[in-house]
């Protein structure tokens, strides 16, 4: 068990290092500097001031020097100083983590709750009405443009039905999170419905299910004792992958619903050329992905003895 954890963490480190290098290099060739981004509609900044700011931010150092600096800082948990606010990036990102996590977890809860249930029942009665219905729904869900769907939700549930607030973080309570979570979760939901259906069908056709039936078990017992857990093993991978990448996908939804998460910070920072902040955000998103994937791997270890003992 410990070995598995150690191995996973050992796997994460090089990926993370590569991400850091990649992101840094990408953004060091970004045209338009942060400072020019600071001037808006006619309020331009004095070129002399710009020069000085470039110096202060160390933008005039040669690339390798900057990279070395960046890496050593990141290694000590320092993500640099935001060009925009001149605060440490960590303080910039810090307050965004919790809302982001909340949104992602809410979306995933929705996706798993609805998707897995739908897929499961669809698989138990292949070809039935619920099967056709949920699978048509699933494939439509995969074909929706996220921001469009979010906007529609907003119009329907906030404006027309007046059931839910349309935007924002509110007091952090449930009502504000529902719409963005649904908008974000609909893609993974559709995917999970399909995966679950396929997985359950796979397992239902497996030999050991026939064995279970030949033991004289009722169909319900077969499903609850033998099918569920085995199907789960197949579904968990997809859950993990979806879960992990959700924070990145949240960019659009966060922007649309003015949700104070990492994604909206990232988009904002991209447009303002606040490179340290963008790098920090991407790093967080990647880290989240890796952490979730590691957790999924560990979940595997917990539910699948074949891995536990190998």
């Amino acid at each position, binding site marked *: 068990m410990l070995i*598995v954890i150690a191995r996973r963490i*050992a796997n994460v480190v090089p990926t993370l290092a590569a991400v850091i290098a990649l992101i840094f290099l990408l953004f060091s060739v970004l045209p338009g500097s942060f400072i020019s981004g600071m001037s808006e509609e006619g309020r331009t900044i004095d070129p002399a001031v710009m020069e000085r700011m470039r110096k202060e931010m160390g933008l005039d150092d040669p690339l390798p020097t900057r990279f070395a600096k960046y890496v050593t800082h990141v290694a000590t948990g320092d993500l640099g100083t935001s060009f925009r606010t001149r605060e440490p990036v960590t303080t910039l990102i810090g307050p965004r983590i919790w809302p982001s996590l909340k949104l992602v977890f809410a979306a995933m809860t929705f996706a798993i709750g609805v998707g897995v249930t739908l897929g499961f029942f669809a698989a138990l009665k292949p070809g039935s009405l619920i099967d056709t219905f949920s699978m048509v729904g699933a494939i439509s869900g995969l074909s929706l443009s996220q921001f469009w769907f979010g906007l529609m939700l907003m119009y329907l549930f906030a404006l027309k039905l007046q059931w839910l607030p349309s935007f924002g973080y509110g007091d952090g309570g449930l009502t504000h999170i529902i719409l963005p979570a649904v908008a974000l979760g609909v893609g993974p939901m559709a995917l999970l419905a399909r995966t679950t259906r396929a997985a359950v069908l796979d397992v239902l056709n497996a030999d050991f299910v026939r064995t279970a039936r030949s033991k004289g078990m009722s169909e319900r017992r077969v499903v609850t004792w033998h099918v569920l857990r085995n199907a789960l093993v197949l579904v968990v991978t997809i859950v993990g992958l979806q879960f992990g990448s959700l924070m990145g996908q949240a960019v659009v939804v966060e922007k649309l619903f003015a949700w104070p998460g990492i994604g909206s910070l990232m988009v904002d920072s991209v447009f303002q050329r606040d490179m340290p902040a963008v790098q920090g955000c991407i790093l967080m998103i990647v880290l989240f992905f890796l952490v979730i994937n590691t957790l999924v791997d560990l979940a595997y270890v917990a539910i699948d003895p074949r891995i536990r003992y*190998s």
Partner: protein
Amino acid sequence: MAEPLLKLDDLAVHFQVGSALAGGVKTLKAVDGVTLDVKAGECLGLVGESGCGKSTLALAIMGLVPPTRGRLALEGHDIKTVDRMATARTVQMVFQDPYASLNPRQTVRRTLADPLRIHGITDKAEVESRVADMMAKVGLRAEQADRYPHEFSGGQRQRIGIARALILKPKLVICDEPVSALDVSIRAQIINLLLDLKDEMGLSYIMISHDLGVVEHVSDRVAVMYLGRIVERGSWQEIFEDPRHPYTRALIAAIPDPFHRAAVTAKAKAKGEIASALNPPSGCHFHPRCPLKADRCVTEVPLLEAVSEGHVAACHFRDALPT
């Protein structure tokens, strides 16, 4: 005496399995010091149970897995010094699964003609005629040349596989369980075909099988493998009528015998299961299952020693087996 066609000297193939982080790397000795030779025109049978290293040995001969140690000589030349293409023209292989061994996206013609082209036969007419010849030899009709594998039955596919192995006119063909994946009623066709071709083209075979009946039927000499090692080797009569290794006896005893042929008694049956090649038993690998197990079997590795001229067995009691 002429050089044997193929000579293996202490050939070993070890695999590293596992990873350094997960439980450590282990060495799996799939083939562990095999010495063998195949003479021209001879059929060598290779028997042994699943996982004993038969296929690995075959792949090593074909150069598909690198040997860990030992020498492999083809017509007296170390195989490392022989050009890959020349080797291809000398040794070929027939695979077990006729379904997986043909490229589903290639017609028979292409499957047979491409090797010729690769080996420098560019004349269209010659390629055509050799393909047609070969197909006729393995009992396929000429008009079937432009079909795809899925249009053939298992037996026909195996014929294509044989044709592909023979198209370069090799001297030695390694047949890795050529009939075990076929329908029972088809097997005879393929076995007969292989024997006919052998005579016709003067081939040598290494016939790998765990069906003792087949091995007895086609082989001139037989080698028995257990956990990566050869435990007995001799002419087919010696092996089947006077087996001198308890494992060989166990193999024979395990064959259900509807005619109640009592050559080997039920007492010779082995107990328990084949050990894993990952941690084979000490001493004689067979000792935990052997009805004759004695103390020295646990500690002392029996060497392949002669029972009679050309018949060797690796058992401490090869000369004292009960009958």
